[in-house]
């Protein structure tokens, strides 16, 4: 009971933090727009109005949605595989989405319409989910699931590398590289409208796996004895990760580490029970990505650092610190 109350307190704290970061995210950037300015905005023609409504608010919403999707997917997968190194990337669905997106850049159709690239990416994620379930399903075990993920990952990274090496000119290659690095810059309301339904649906599926994840802490045999359908759990996770992370990749490119680190940070506050980890991980993932995205916007004296790159750069030392403290507590 006490722990449950502690969980709620943590969630409220994270929500408050998220609200603060969201407000900061609307204000901060190359063009500083303090909230006091909002009162005297000159209507739809004022550049600050355009910046806030067309760039900052979509960017903030995407940061929250994508961060939450990645954090939640990471927590779910770490619970499901009982492996603390699992992250949304391990299933290969994100890289299938990225590969499909890269194809639109390679064939130079991405700019035909703003939804071409996201639509392709989501189709890629869907194909990934279908392949994943087809290859891994009969066993229903986490190991075959992960192996299927390795296959998809290898296949799609080979595809991306091939597209890069065959790209018709250096500009097309740089376009692909720029997109792959993962960024929320200059996204708009359309991106939010495209990604939000899929991220929300996928996240709902993942949240529903909580009880099954708790049962799985007893091992697959134990979970089966408790009446958990492993195949159903697997299908829910494949579909949930596919929808949430596929949509995330479709609008932002590849952003790593959020899904890997967030559950570790949260676990220290709420304990090891996987179902308790899900909601706080989503909230913490949103906070983490939003904070990183605010930081990269303020890159001094250079073009904006891609948030995917920044996450990886920040993620490695955080992970090292976690590892060292884990070692100390074991010793």
């Amino acid at each position, binding site marked *: 009971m006490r722990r449950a109350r502690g969980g709620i307190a943590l969630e409220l704290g994270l929500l408050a933090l998220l609200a603060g970061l969201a407000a900061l995210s609307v204000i901060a950037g190359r*063009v500083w727009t303090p909230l006091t300015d909002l009162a005297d905005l000159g209507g739809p023609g*004022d550049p*600050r109005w355009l910046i806030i409504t067309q*760039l900052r608010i979509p960017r903030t919403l995407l940061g929250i949605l994508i961060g939450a999707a990645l954090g939640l997917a990471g927590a779910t997968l770490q619970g499901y595989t009982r492996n603390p190194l699992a992250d949304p990337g391990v299933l290969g669905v994100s890289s299938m989405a990225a590969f499909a997106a890269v194809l639109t850049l390679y064939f130079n159709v991405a*700019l035909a319409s*703003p939804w071409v690239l996201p639509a392709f990416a989501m189709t890629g994620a869907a194909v990934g989910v279908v392949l994943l379930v087809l290859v891994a399903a009969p066993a229903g075990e986490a190991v075959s699931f992960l192996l299927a993920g390795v296959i998809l990952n290898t296949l799609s990274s080979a595809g991306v590398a091939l597209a890069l090496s065959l790209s018709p000119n250096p500009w097309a290659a740089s*376009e692909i590289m720029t997109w792959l690095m993962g960024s929320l*810059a*200059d996204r708009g309301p359309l991106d939010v409208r495209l990604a939000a339904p899929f991220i929300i649906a996928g996240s709902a599926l993942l949240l529903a796996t909580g009880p099954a994840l708790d049962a799985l802490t007893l091992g697959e045999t134990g979970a089966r004895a408790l009446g958990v359908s492993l195949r159903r759990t697997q299908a829910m996770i494949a579909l949930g990760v596919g929808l949430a992370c596929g949509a995330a990749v479709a609008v932002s490119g590849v952003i790593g580490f959020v899904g890997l680190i967030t559950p570790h940070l949260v676990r220290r506050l709420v304990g090891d029970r996987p179902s308790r980890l899900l909601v706080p991980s989503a909230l913490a993932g949103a906070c983490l990505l939003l904070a990183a995205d605010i930081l990269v916007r303020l890159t001094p004296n250079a073009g904006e650092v891609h948030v995917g790159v920044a996450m990886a750069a920040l993620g490695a030392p955080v992970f090292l610190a976690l590892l060292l403290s884990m070692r100390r507590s074991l010793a």
Partner: protein
Amino acid sequence: MAAPLISVVRGLALAGLIVGAAQAGTPPRRVVSLNPCLDGILLEVADPGQITALSHYAREPGQSVITSAARRFPFTWGSAEEVVALRPDLVLNSGAGDIALTGALPRLHVREARFTVPASIEESLAQVRRMAVLVGHPERGDALAARIRAALAAAAPRPGEPRLGALIYQYHGLALGPHTLADDLMRRTGFDNRAARHGVKGAGEVPLEALIADPPQVLLAGRLAPDEPVWADRVLSNPVLGALPTRMRRETFPAVLMFCGGPSLIPASAALAEARENALRGLSR
């Protein structure tokens, strides 16, 4: 009463409703360029007062031939919000590079002129003239095009001079093939581009083996700064190339001159003419 009215008018103008008038008559007064190659043309055809910002690439020494001129103007790092905040009445964009930015501009009611990467000299000259018309100085576009043509004519081989088989070799063995500006420039300055023989379309890599099996007479190795080592040097220092029975001349074609069309075609054609003359002298020795 007046203040809201002004802001509405300003709003409409920015929303593109009044910009139509600017398109028809008055030249743009706040031009923002997002691409270093477009920066180079803009500096030649626009009044300094019309240029609101250039790209940050143009300021980087070694990356552009217009560094010192570009440093006199403000610049953006190429984010949509910087562009909007400058209230431009014309944005020059290449459409390549960051697709999120290119996707964002139409949404922000910015009047945008998109230029592709020119694949030939004629295409580049057409872009020069188009930009000059856009900024309201068509005569400067014609004059710049004439200067470029004159430079090309001066760099053309003299009658009777042999043409040289050549290959551009930069970075990781990247060669520029048919349907590129560099290919057109090579043809006009007395080189036969060998890239197509190696299966290169657009830009592509030529492996060392292919180079050994079928060496060109001239290898045009690009570099950014005179002393800056490039990967191509490592490949080209391979002893097998020195042991080739056929002689192959290495000449420098600065990489910075390969990036853009427009005014940089003038030093580029001079550099190629110099490379040709050096190579001819060396090969006849």
